């Protein structure tokens, strides 16, 4: 049904897909990770640069579908410039939205363009696509915190 499909492929998603924000790998960074979605092969290499407890930069190189690409782009918009703790909260909220099977109402205040992914939650096979870059970011941030001994 075109309507369900449109719920999945919201304009916002297609825009981010065609013009991804913050794409490319940049220095400086404290951690770099490489994540793969084993079932479909989507890949992301992602770097995190933290400074003074703030997510200074997130840069990435990704191969994958519209959902996974757009999600990476939206994610960088959401976390860059935020204190680590607040960024983690946003991550949690996005996770809850994705795992809600379409029953969770997204909060535009926190998730901004991320609310466009509400439709993805109804497609279990695509939830992993939307989460790939978020998982990579969380992993990289944890590593960055570790290597710097929590002092960022």
């Amino acid at each position, binding site marked *: 049904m075109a309507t369900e499909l449109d719920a999945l492929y919201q304009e916002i998603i297609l825009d981010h897909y065609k013009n991804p924000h913050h794409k490319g790998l940049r220095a400086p960074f404290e951690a770099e990770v490489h994540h793969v979605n*084993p079932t479909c092969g989507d890949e992301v290499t992602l770097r995190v640069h933290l400074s003074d407890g703030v997510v200074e930069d997130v840069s990435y190189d990704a191969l994958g579908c519209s959902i996974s690409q757009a999600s990476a782009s939206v994610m960088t918009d959401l976390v860059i410039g935020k204190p680590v703790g607040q960024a983690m909260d946003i991550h949690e909220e996005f996770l809850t939205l994705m795992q809600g099977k379409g029953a969770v109402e997204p909060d535009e205040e926190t998730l901004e363009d991320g609310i466009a992914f509400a439709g993805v939650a109804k497609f279990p*096979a*695509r939830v992993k696509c939307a989460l790939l870059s978020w998982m990579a970011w969380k992993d990289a941030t944890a590593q960055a915190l570790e290597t710097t001994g929590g002092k960022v």
Partner: protein
Amino acid sequence: MTQLPGMLPDLDIIRKDFPILARSVAGGQPLVYLDSANTSQKPQVVIDTMVDHLERHNANIARAMHTLGAESTEAFEAARDKVATFIGAPEREGVVFTKNITEALNLLSNTFAWAEGDLRVGPGDEVLITEMEHHSNIVPWQLLTERTGATLRWFGLTDDGRLDLSNIDDLINERTKVVSLTWVSNMLGTVNPVREIADKAHAVGAVVVVDAAQAVPQLPVDVIASGADFLGFTGHKTVGPTGIGVLWGRPELLNALPPFHGGGEMIETVTMERSTYAKAPHRFEAGTPPIVEAVGLGAAVEYLGHLGMDAVHAHEQAVTAYALEGLASVKGVTVLGPLDAASRGGAISFELDGVHPHDVAQVLDSRGIAIRAGHHCAKPAHARFGVQASSRMSSYLYTTPSEIDAFVEGLEYTRSYFKLS
């Protein structure tokens, strides 16, 4: 119907759930199925769930992005959740689907050979089993110890068919790497003190593998309370289909093991030069898993959950006590294993003096009564008691007291048929 204290209420309604019980055999006689320790019968809901999956949702899992693929994946992974709940596994990741429990045990014995670190079994290490194990919990460890230069040791048995724990402090020592034992014996019926042995094993740093093939169908099982590090069971004895078994393991241990079978869906990434592997459970589910079988097993454990495993266990105990009484009334019958129902499961092996077990089974079969005769894949336990074969009756949640009556009458008839006095 005779009522025994502890029996499942509404047994005649429960029996209607099992279509095969309506069958007649041997020229029109009702089927009396007393071979459930060998394989259990299947309730309609398990069969219907499988048919529905095959007729409406069949697709490969994980890999497929389309509607059927999503439905099939959801059904398969929901089955994993149901199994986890049923055996009290705190994490679904600890539940690995295998072909049967035999594959589960071989998965362990093989990966212990190639593991790096603590779980590796090598020269000088000891693997400890018991003399009452099913061949599926003996041969894998023989192959492992022969191939790695480790030593296989075992608990002996007492005359009444229990584990001889008198030398436990010698058997469980600092060289012991693995202790693998059955929870409930498929031959002697004995229920073993798994937790007690697990605690001793853990004290010396060994890992504990529990063969729960006969326990999960009969007892409320909580993997954590059992003390096991790994625990396996098999679908077809648990009112589920053939072709599916379960290995539960503590996830951190599963993830410390190298892969067993290599192939599709157990990988993280593959190049021609080298591959990296997914975490448990997928690491151990190479290739297309038994999808419809897992879905069927999900329905099976849900069915058992609805009956309540405490109630199933009470029924088994009641029927077993009644059967032991009946057997005691037949001249020339010797029961192998413990004689009190409370310390045993529902499989009762016995000898009938003067008639070979095959012949006992054959005569009973002519009266529609299905029991097993032979060594029940437990040759060493038979050898321990100086018998080469035995007869075995094994009841389950659908067994009625009148079926036990028919069985006991069948034994009397067998005696007269073979003109024993």
